[in-house]
Protein backbone atom coordinates (compact mmCIF):
# COMPACT_ATOMS: atom_id res chain seq x y z
CA UNK A 1 0.00 0.00 0.00
CA UNK A 2 1.37 3.38 -0.98
CA UNK A 3 0.79 6.15 1.61
CA UNK A 4 -0.94 9.37 0.43
CA UNK A 5 0.95 12.35 -0.99
CA UNK A 6 0.23 15.31 -3.20
CA UNK A 7 1.10 14.99 -6.90
CA UNK A 8 2.32 17.99 -8.86
CA UNK A 9 2.86 18.22 -12.60
CA UNK A 10 4.86 21.36 -13.43
CA UNK A 11 5.18 22.34 -17.10
CA UNK A 12 8.44 24.26 -16.81
CA UNK A 13 11.77 23.89 -15.00
CA UNK A 14 11.04 27.17 -13.19
CA UNK A 15 7.78 25.79 -11.78
CA UNK A 16 9.49 22.55 -10.76
CA UNK A 17 12.29 24.24 -8.82
CA UNK A 18 9.81 26.63 -7.19
CA UNK A 19 7.79 23.62 -5.99
CA UNK A 20 10.98 21.94 -4.74
CA UNK A 21 11.98 25.09 -2.89
CA UNK A 22 8.58 25.42 -1.20
CA UNK A 23 8.56 21.75 -0.18
CA UNK A 24 11.61 22.27 2.07
CA UNK A 25 13.01 18.82 1.52
CA UNK A 26 9.71 16.96 1.81
CA UNK A 27 9.19 16.45 -1.90
CA UNK A 28 10.56 13.85 -4.26
CA UNK A 29 11.00 14.21 -8.00
CA UNK A 30 9.45 11.47 -10.09
CA UNK A 31 10.21 10.74 -13.73
CA UNK A 32 9.73 7.13 -14.84
CA UNK A 33 9.00 5.94 -11.31
CA UNK A 34 10.70 2.58 -11.86
CA UNK A 35 12.66 3.00 -8.61
CA UNK A 36 10.51 5.50 -6.69
CA UNK A 37 7.19 3.66 -7.17
CA UNK A 38 8.81 0.61 -5.54
CA UNK A 39 10.29 2.73 -2.75
CA UNK A 40 6.83 4.18 -2.05
CA UNK A 41 5.22 0.77 -2.11
CA UNK A 42 7.60 -0.79 0.40
CA UNK A 43 7.72 2.27 2.63
CA UNK A 44 11.34 3.29 2.04
CA UNK A 45 10.07 6.61 0.76
CA UNK A 46 7.29 8.70 2.27
CA UNK A 47 7.36 12.18 0.72
CA UNK A 48 4.62 14.73 1.31
CA UNK A 49 4.57 15.59 -2.33
CA UNK A 50 5.73 14.15 -5.60
CA UNK A 51 6.80 16.36 -8.47
CA UNK A 52 6.40 14.73 -11.88
CA UNK A 53 8.92 16.29 -14.29
CA UNK A 54 7.92 14.29 -17.37
CA UNK A 55 5.63 17.08 -18.67
CA UNK A 56 8.52 19.52 -18.91
CA UNK A 57 9.36 19.62 -22.64
CA UNK A 58 12.89 20.90 -22.06
CA UNK A 59 13.73 17.81 -20.02
CA UNK A 60 12.47 15.46 -22.73
CA UNK A 61 14.95 16.33 -25.51
CA UNK A 62 18.19 14.97 -26.92
CA UNK A 63 20.09 17.71 -28.74
CA UNK A 64 23.40 18.41 -30.43
CA UNK A 65 24.94 21.83 -29.89
CA UNK A 66 28.50 23.09 -30.45
CA UNK A 67 30.11 19.68 -30.35
CA UNK A 68 28.10 18.60 -27.32
CA UNK A 69 25.25 16.14 -26.88
CA UNK A 70 22.73 17.12 -24.24
CA UNK A 71 20.11 14.78 -22.85
CA UNK A 72 17.21 15.99 -20.72
CA UNK A 73 16.88 14.26 -17.36
CA UNK A 74 13.44 12.86 -18.26
CA UNK A 75 14.55 11.15 -21.47
CA UNK A 76 13.85 7.42 -21.24
CA UNK A 77 16.33 4.58 -21.70
CA UNK A 78 14.39 3.46 -24.80
CA UNK A 79 14.72 6.90 -26.31
CA UNK A 80 18.47 6.93 -25.65
CA UNK A 81 18.92 3.39 -26.98
CA UNK A 82 17.25 4.33 -30.27
CA UNK A 83 18.61 7.88 -30.63
CA UNK A 84 20.68 8.29 -33.79
CA UNK A 85 22.55 11.18 -32.13
CA UNK A 86 23.60 9.07 -29.14
CA UNK A 87 24.41 6.05 -31.30
CA UNK A 88 26.65 8.21 -33.47
CA UNK A 89 28.38 10.33 -30.82
CA UNK A 90 28.23 8.23 -27.66
CA UNK A 91 27.49 4.63 -28.59
CA UNK A 92 28.81 3.33 -25.26
CA UNK A 93 25.78 5.02 -23.65
CA UNK A 94 23.14 3.80 -26.12
CA UNK A 95 24.59 0.27 -25.81
CA UNK A 96 24.22 0.41 -22.02
CA UNK A 97 20.72 1.93 -22.17
CA UNK A 98 19.52 -0.83 -24.49
CA UNK A 99 20.25 -3.51 -21.88
CA UNK A 100 18.60 -2.00 -18.82
CA UNK A 101 15.85 -4.04 -17.15
CA UNK A 102 13.20 -4.92 -19.71
CA UNK A 103 11.46 -3.12 -22.59
CA UNK A 104 8.72 -1.97 -20.17
CA UNK A 105 11.30 -0.61 -17.69
CA UNK A 106 13.25 1.12 -20.47
CA UNK A 107 10.04 2.75 -21.72
CA UNK A 108 9.49 4.34 -18.29
CA UNK A 109 12.90 4.70 -16.66
CA UNK A 110 14.95 7.82 -17.36
CA UNK A 111 18.60 8.76 -17.45
CA UNK A 112 18.06 11.37 -14.73
CA UNK A 113 16.43 8.80 -12.50
CA UNK A 114 19.20 6.29 -13.11
CA UNK A 115 21.77 8.87 -11.96
CA UNK A 116 19.85 10.24 -9.00
CA UNK A 117 18.96 6.80 -7.68
CA UNK A 118 22.75 6.40 -7.62
CA UNK A 119 22.83 2.63 -7.50
CA UNK A 120 26.38 1.21 -7.63
CA UNK A 121 24.99 -0.96 -10.45
CA UNK A 122 23.36 1.82 -12.49
CA UNK A 123 24.06 0.91 -16.10
CA UNK A 124 24.28 4.45 -17.49
CA UNK A 125 26.90 5.71 -15.03
CA UNK A 126 30.09 3.97 -16.25
CA UNK A 127 29.40 4.97 -19.90
CA UNK A 128 28.73 8.58 -18.86
CA UNK A 129 31.95 8.56 -16.85
CA UNK A 130 34.07 7.53 -19.82
CA UNK A 131 32.23 10.10 -21.94
CA UNK A 132 33.29 12.75 -19.39
CA UNK A 133 29.68 13.79 -18.85
CA UNK A 134 28.53 16.78 -16.83
CA UNK A 135 25.24 17.22 -15.04
CA UNK A 136 23.38 20.53 -15.11
CA UNK A 137 21.90 21.07 -11.67
CA UNK A 138 19.35 23.85 -11.27
CA UNK A 139 17.86 25.46 -8.22
CA UNK A 140 15.97 28.61 -7.36
CA UNK A 141 18.12 31.49 -8.55
CA UNK A 142 20.99 29.53 -10.00
CA UNK A 143 22.51 26.55 -11.69
CA UNK A 144 25.79 24.65 -11.56
CA UNK A 145 27.60 22.17 -13.75
CA UNK A 146 28.75 19.07 -11.91
CA UNK A 147 31.21 16.60 -13.43
CA UNK A 148 29.53 13.23 -13.17
CA UNK A 149 32.50 11.88 -11.23
CA UNK A 150 31.61 14.29 -8.40
CA UNK A 151 27.89 13.63 -8.34
CA UNK A 152 27.99 10.51 -6.17
CA UNK A 153 28.63 10.47 -2.46
CA UNK A 154 28.17 6.77 -1.86
CA UNK A 155 25.81 3.92 -2.69
CA UNK A 156 22.37 5.44 -3.39
CA UNK A 157 23.62 8.90 -2.32
CA UNK A 158 24.28 11.94 -4.47
CA UNK A 159 25.70 15.35 -3.63
CA UNK A 160 22.48 17.11 -4.66
CA UNK A 161 20.66 19.21 -2.09
CA UNK A 162 16.94 18.55 -1.58
CA UNK A 163 15.95 21.70 -3.47
CA UNK A 164 18.18 20.98 -6.45
CA UNK A 165 17.05 19.38 -9.70
CA UNK A 166 19.25 17.47 -12.13
CA UNK A 167 17.98 18.92 -15.40
CA UNK A 168 20.35 17.77 -18.09
CA UNK A 169 23.33 15.58 -18.85
CA UNK A 170 25.87 16.71 -21.45
CA UNK A 171 28.95 15.12 -22.95
CA UNK A 172 31.34 16.12 -25.73
CA UNK A 173 30.70 14.30 -29.00
CA UNK A 174 33.07 11.37 -29.26
CA UNK A 175 35.41 11.78 -32.27
CA UNK A 176 34.76 9.09 -34.92
CA UNK A 177 38.20 7.50 -34.36
CA UNK A 178 37.39 6.66 -30.74
CA UNK A 179 36.38 3.05 -30.12
CA UNK A 180 33.98 2.11 -27.32
CA UNK A 181 32.30 -0.81 -25.64
CA UNK A 182 30.03 -1.57 -22.70
CA UNK A 183 29.69 -5.03 -21.20
CA UNK A 184 27.67 -6.16 -18.22
CA UNK A 185 27.46 -9.43 -16.40
CA UNK A 186 24.30 -10.38 -14.54
CA UNK A 187 22.44 -13.53 -13.56
CA UNK A 188 20.41 -13.40 -16.77
CA UNK A 189 20.55 -11.44 -20.02
CA UNK A 190 17.36 -9.51 -19.22
CA UNK A 191 15.63 -8.31 -16.06
CA UNK A 192 18.70 -8.56 -13.90
CA UNK A 193 20.86 -6.07 -12.07
CA UNK A 194 24.46 -5.94 -13.27
CA UNK A 195 26.96 -7.69 -10.96
CA UNK A 196 29.87 -6.26 -12.91
CA UNK A 197 29.87 -3.71 -15.70
CA UNK A 198 32.67 -2.16 -17.72
CA UNK A 199 32.65 0.81 -20.08
CA UNK A 200 35.66 1.76 -22.18
CA UNK A 201 36.52 4.49 -24.64
CA UNK A 202 39.84 4.30 -26.44
CA UNK A 203 41.89 5.56 -29.33
CA UNK A 204 44.71 3.71 -31.02
CA UNK A 205 47.39 5.61 -32.87
CA UNK A 206 50.49 4.04 -34.34
CA UNK A 207 49.52 0.78 -32.63
CA UNK A 208 49.55 2.38 -29.19
CA UNK A 209 46.86 3.50 -26.80
CA UNK A 210 46.72 7.20 -27.51
CA UNK A 211 43.72 7.64 -25.21
CA UNK A 212 42.04 5.22 -22.83
CA UNK A 213 39.21 5.70 -20.37
CA UNK A 214 37.80 2.89 -18.27
CA UNK A 215 34.92 2.93 -15.80
CA UNK A 216 33.38 0.09 -13.82
CA UNK A 217 30.00 -0.40 -12.18
CA UNK A 218 28.72 -2.67 -9.36
CA UNK A 219 32.13 -3.66 -7.99
CA UNK A 220 32.94 -0.44 -6.12
CA UNK A 221 30.68 1.58 -3.75
CA UNK A 222 29.91 3.95 -6.61
CA UNK A 223 30.86 3.49 -10.26
CA UNK A 224 34.40 4.74 -10.83
CA UNK A 225 37.05 5.53 -13.37
CA UNK A 226 39.96 3.09 -13.19
CA UNK A 227 42.78 5.61 -13.30
CA UNK A 228 45.63 3.16 -12.53
CA UNK A 229 44.72 0.84 -15.37
CA UNK A 230 44.28 3.84 -17.63
CA UNK A 231 47.71 5.25 -16.74
CA UNK A 232 49.29 1.81 -17.20
CA UNK A 233 47.83 1.31 -20.67
CA UNK A 234 48.48 4.74 -22.07
CA UNK A 235 51.22 4.53 -24.71
CA UNK A 236 51.33 0.71 -24.57
CA UNK A 237 50.50 -1.56 -27.44
CA UNK A 238 47.07 -3.21 -27.24
CA UNK A 239 48.40 -6.74 -26.88
CA UNK A 240 47.41 -9.66 -24.68
CA UNK A 241 50.17 -9.05 -22.13
CA UNK A 242 49.33 -5.41 -21.48
CA UNK A 243 45.59 -6.18 -21.28
CA UNK A 244 46.32 -8.94 -18.75
CA UNK A 245 48.44 -6.62 -16.63
CA UNK A 246 45.85 -3.85 -16.81
CA UNK A 247 43.12 -6.30 -15.77
CA UNK A 248 45.02 -6.97 -12.53
CA UNK A 249 44.95 -3.26 -11.77
CA UNK A 250 41.15 -3.33 -12.11
CA UNK A 251 40.68 -6.25 -9.74
CA UNK A 252 43.17 -4.71 -7.29
CA UNK A 253 41.14 -1.49 -7.30
CA UNK A 254 37.96 -3.49 -6.65
CA UNK A 255 39.50 -5.27 -3.65
CA UNK A 256 40.99 -2.08 -2.28
CA UNK A 257 37.64 -0.28 -2.42
CA UNK A 258 35.19 -3.04 -1.58
CA UNK A 259 37.36 -5.28 0.60
CA UNK A 260 37.67 -9.05 0.52
CA UNK A 261 34.16 -10.52 0.40
CA UNK A 262 32.92 -14.08 0.23
CA UNK A 263 32.41 -13.52 -3.50
CA UNK A 264 35.90 -12.14 -4.13
CA UNK A 265 37.57 -15.38 -5.17
CA UNK A 266 34.93 -15.72 -7.87
CA UNK A 267 34.69 -12.08 -8.79
CA UNK A 268 38.41 -11.34 -9.17
CA UNK A 269 39.01 -13.55 -12.24
CA UNK A 270 35.60 -12.66 -13.67
CA UNK A 271 36.21 -8.91 -13.40
CA UNK A 272 39.55 -9.38 -15.11
CA UNK A 273 38.04 -11.49 -17.89
CA UNK A 274 35.12 -9.12 -18.44
CA UNK A 275 37.49 -6.17 -18.68
CA UNK A 276 39.68 -7.95 -21.24
CA UNK A 277 36.58 -8.93 -23.20
CA UNK A 278 35.33 -5.33 -23.17
CA UNK A 279 38.71 -4.07 -24.38
CA UNK A 280 38.82 -6.63 -27.20
CA UNK A 281 35.28 -5.79 -28.21
CA UNK A 282 36.20 -2.11 -28.47
CA UNK A 283 39.46 -2.84 -30.30
CA UNK A 284 37.61 -4.96 -32.87
CA UNK A 285 34.97 -2.30 -33.44
Amino acid at each position, binding site marked *: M*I*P*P*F*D*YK*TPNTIQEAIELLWQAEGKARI*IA*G*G*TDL*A*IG*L*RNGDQSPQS*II*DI*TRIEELRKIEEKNGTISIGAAVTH*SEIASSSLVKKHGKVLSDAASGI*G*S*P*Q*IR*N*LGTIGGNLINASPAADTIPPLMVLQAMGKVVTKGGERQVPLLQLFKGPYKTNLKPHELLAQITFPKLPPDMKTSFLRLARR*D*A*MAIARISVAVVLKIEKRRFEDIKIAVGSITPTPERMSEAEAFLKGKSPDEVSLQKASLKISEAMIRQSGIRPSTSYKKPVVEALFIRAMKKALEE
Partner: protein
Amino acid sequence: MERTIKFTLNGRLINVEVSPHWTLLKLLREKLRLTGTKEGCGIGECGACTVLMDGIPVNACLVLAPKVEGRKIETIEGLGSRESLHPLQKSFIDHGAIQCGFCTPGILMSSKALLEKNSNPNRKEIKEALSGHLCRCTGYHQIIEAIKKASEV
Protein backbone atom coordinates in the same frame (compact mmCIF):
# COMPACT_ATOMS: atom_id res chain seq x y z
CA MET B 1 -6.23 15.00 -2.32
CA GLU B 2 -8.55 13.18 -4.74
CA ARG B 3 -8.44 14.50 -8.24
CA THR B 4 -10.20 13.90 -11.52
CA ILE B 5 -8.05 12.75 -14.39
CA LYS B 6 -8.98 12.47 -18.03
CA PHE B 7 -7.44 9.93 -20.35
CA THR B 8 -8.26 7.64 -23.25
CA LEU B 9 -8.89 4.08 -22.18
CA ASN B 10 -9.24 1.51 -24.95
CA GLY B 11 -10.31 4.21 -27.40
CA ARG B 12 -12.80 5.99 -25.13
CA LEU B 13 -12.12 9.26 -23.36
CA ILE B 14 -12.93 8.87 -19.66
CA ASN B 15 -12.96 11.06 -16.55
CA VAL B 16 -12.23 9.31 -13.31
CA GLU B 17 -11.53 10.34 -9.75
CA VAL B 18 -8.27 8.98 -8.34
CA SER B 19 -6.06 9.33 -5.31
CA PRO B 20 -2.58 10.45 -6.40
CA HIS B 21 -0.93 7.56 -4.61
CA TRP B 22 -2.80 4.92 -6.58
CA THR B 23 -0.97 3.06 -9.28
CA LEU B 24 -2.47 2.72 -12.73
CA LEU B 25 -2.84 -0.98 -11.94
CA LYS B 26 -5.00 -0.28 -8.89
CA LEU B 27 -7.05 2.26 -10.85
CA LEU B 28 -7.71 -0.24 -13.63
CA ARG B 29 -8.51 -3.22 -11.44
CA GLU B 30 -10.21 -1.75 -8.40
CA LYS B 31 -11.91 1.41 -9.62
CA LEU B 32 -12.59 0.65 -13.27
CA ARG B 33 -13.07 -3.09 -12.66
CA LEU B 34 -10.90 -4.04 -15.60
CA THR B 35 -9.40 -7.13 -14.01
CA GLY B 36 -7.85 -8.53 -17.18
CA THR B 37 -4.63 -6.74 -16.27
CA LYS B 38 -2.99 -8.88 -13.56
CA GLU B 39 -0.82 -8.05 -10.61
CA GLY B 40 2.10 -10.45 -10.32
CA CYS B 41 5.10 -9.09 -8.44
CA GLY B 42 3.98 -5.45 -8.08
CA ILE B 43 7.57 -4.24 -8.53
CA GLY B 44 8.05 -4.22 -12.28
CA GLU B 45 9.78 -7.56 -12.65
CA CYS B 46 7.21 -10.01 -14.00
CA GLY B 47 5.38 -8.10 -16.71
CA ALA B 48 1.92 -9.46 -15.81
CA CYS B 49 0.50 -5.93 -15.48
CA THR B 50 1.82 -4.71 -18.84
CA VAL B 51 -0.46 -2.22 -20.60
CA LEU B 52 0.26 0.15 -23.48
CA MET B 53 0.73 3.84 -22.73
CA ASP B 54 0.69 5.91 -25.93
CA GLY B 55 1.35 2.65 -27.77
CA ILE B 56 4.36 1.44 -25.78
CA PRO B 57 4.45 -1.32 -23.14
CA VAL B 58 4.80 -0.21 -19.52
CA ASN B 59 4.36 -1.91 -16.15
CA ALA B 60 1.06 -0.57 -14.76
CA CYS B 61 2.32 -1.29 -11.23
CA LEU B 62 5.06 1.34 -11.63
CA VAL B 63 2.91 4.10 -13.10
CA LEU B 64 1.23 6.40 -10.61
CA ALA B 65 -2.34 7.11 -11.69
CA PRO B 66 -2.02 10.90 -12.15
CA LYS B 67 0.69 10.29 -14.73
CA VAL B 68 -1.84 8.97 -17.25
CA GLU B 69 -3.62 12.33 -17.51
CA GLY B 70 -4.05 13.04 -21.23
CA ARG B 71 -2.48 9.73 -22.31
CA LYS B 72 -3.80 6.79 -24.28
CA ILE B 73 -3.98 3.56 -22.29
CA GLU B 74 -4.75 0.20 -23.87
CA THR B 75 -5.49 -2.90 -21.83
CA ILE B 76 -6.33 -6.48 -22.71
CA GLU B 77 -10.05 -5.58 -22.57
CA GLY B 78 -9.53 -3.39 -25.64
CA LEU B 79 -7.70 -6.00 -27.67
CA GLY B 80 -10.57 -8.12 -28.94
CA SER B 81 -14.03 -9.19 -27.90
CA ARG B 82 -15.57 -12.56 -27.12
CA GLU B 83 -17.25 -12.44 -30.52
CA SER B 84 -14.23 -11.31 -32.46
CA LEU B 85 -10.82 -12.19 -31.11
CA HIS B 86 -7.71 -10.25 -32.06
CA PRO B 87 -5.49 -12.31 -34.44
CA LEU B 88 -2.92 -12.60 -31.63
CA GLN B 89 -5.51 -14.00 -29.23
CA LYS B 90 -6.66 -16.50 -31.86
CA SER B 91 -3.08 -17.52 -32.55
CA PHE B 92 -2.33 -18.00 -28.83
CA ILE B 93 -5.30 -20.38 -28.58
CA ASP B 94 -4.35 -22.22 -31.79
CA HIS B 95 -0.78 -22.77 -30.63
CA GLY B 96 -1.49 -23.74 -27.05
CA ALA B 97 0.35 -20.65 -25.84
CA ILE B 98 -1.79 -20.41 -22.71
CA GLN B 99 -1.83 -22.56 -19.63
CA CYS B 100 -2.81 -20.82 -16.41
CA GLY B 101 -3.26 -17.57 -18.34
CA PHE B 102 -1.98 -15.21 -15.67
CA CYS B 103 0.88 -13.82 -17.76
CA THR B 104 -1.11 -13.87 -21.01
CA PRO B 105 -2.78 -10.42 -20.95
CA GLY B 106 0.55 -8.70 -20.41
CA ILE B 107 2.31 -10.78 -23.05
CA LEU B 108 -0.48 -10.05 -25.55
CA MET B 109 -0.09 -6.30 -24.97
CA SER B 110 3.69 -6.44 -25.54
CA SER B 111 3.07 -8.60 -28.63
CA LYS B 112 0.59 -6.08 -30.01
CA ALA B 113 3.09 -3.25 -29.53
CA LEU B 114 5.79 -5.35 -31.22
CA LEU B 115 3.67 -6.16 -34.29
CA GLU B 116 2.62 -2.54 -34.67
CA LYS B 117 6.26 -1.49 -34.79
CA ASN B 118 7.56 -4.49 -36.71
CA SER B 119 5.01 -6.46 -38.75
CA ASN B 120 7.40 -9.34 -39.44
CA PRO B 121 9.62 -9.90 -36.39
CA ASN B 122 12.16 -12.72 -36.26
CA ARG B 123 12.51 -15.01 -33.24
CA LYS B 124 15.24 -12.87 -31.72
CA GLU B 125 13.10 -9.75 -31.94
CA ILE B 126 10.12 -11.59 -30.44
CA LYS B 127 12.25 -12.86 -27.54
CA GLU B 128 13.60 -9.36 -26.97
CA ALA B 129 10.05 -7.94 -26.89
CA LEU B 130 9.05 -10.62 -24.36
CA SER B 131 12.14 -10.22 -22.17
CA GLY B 132 10.16 -8.34 -19.52
CA HIS B 133 7.62 -11.13 -19.06
CA LEU B 134 7.75 -14.20 -16.89
CA CYS B 135 5.65 -17.24 -17.74
CA ARG B 136 5.98 -20.18 -15.37
CA CYS B 137 3.88 -22.67 -17.35
CA THR B 138 4.48 -22.86 -21.07
CA GLY B 139 8.19 -22.31 -21.36
CA TYR B 140 7.77 -19.56 -24.00
CA HIS B 141 8.18 -21.79 -27.06
CA GLN B 142 4.50 -21.85 -27.99
CA ILE B 143 4.17 -18.16 -27.18
CA ILE B 144 6.94 -17.25 -29.61
CA GLU B 145 5.44 -19.56 -32.22
CA ALA B 146 1.99 -17.99 -31.74
CA ILE B 147 3.34 -14.47 -32.23
CA LYS B 148 5.36 -15.51 -35.27
CA LYS B 149 2.31 -17.12 -36.87
CA ALA B 150 0.05 -14.18 -36.00
CA SER B 151 2.50 -11.88 -37.79
CA GLU B 152 2.17 -13.96 -40.93
CA VAL B 153 -1.63 -13.64 -41.06
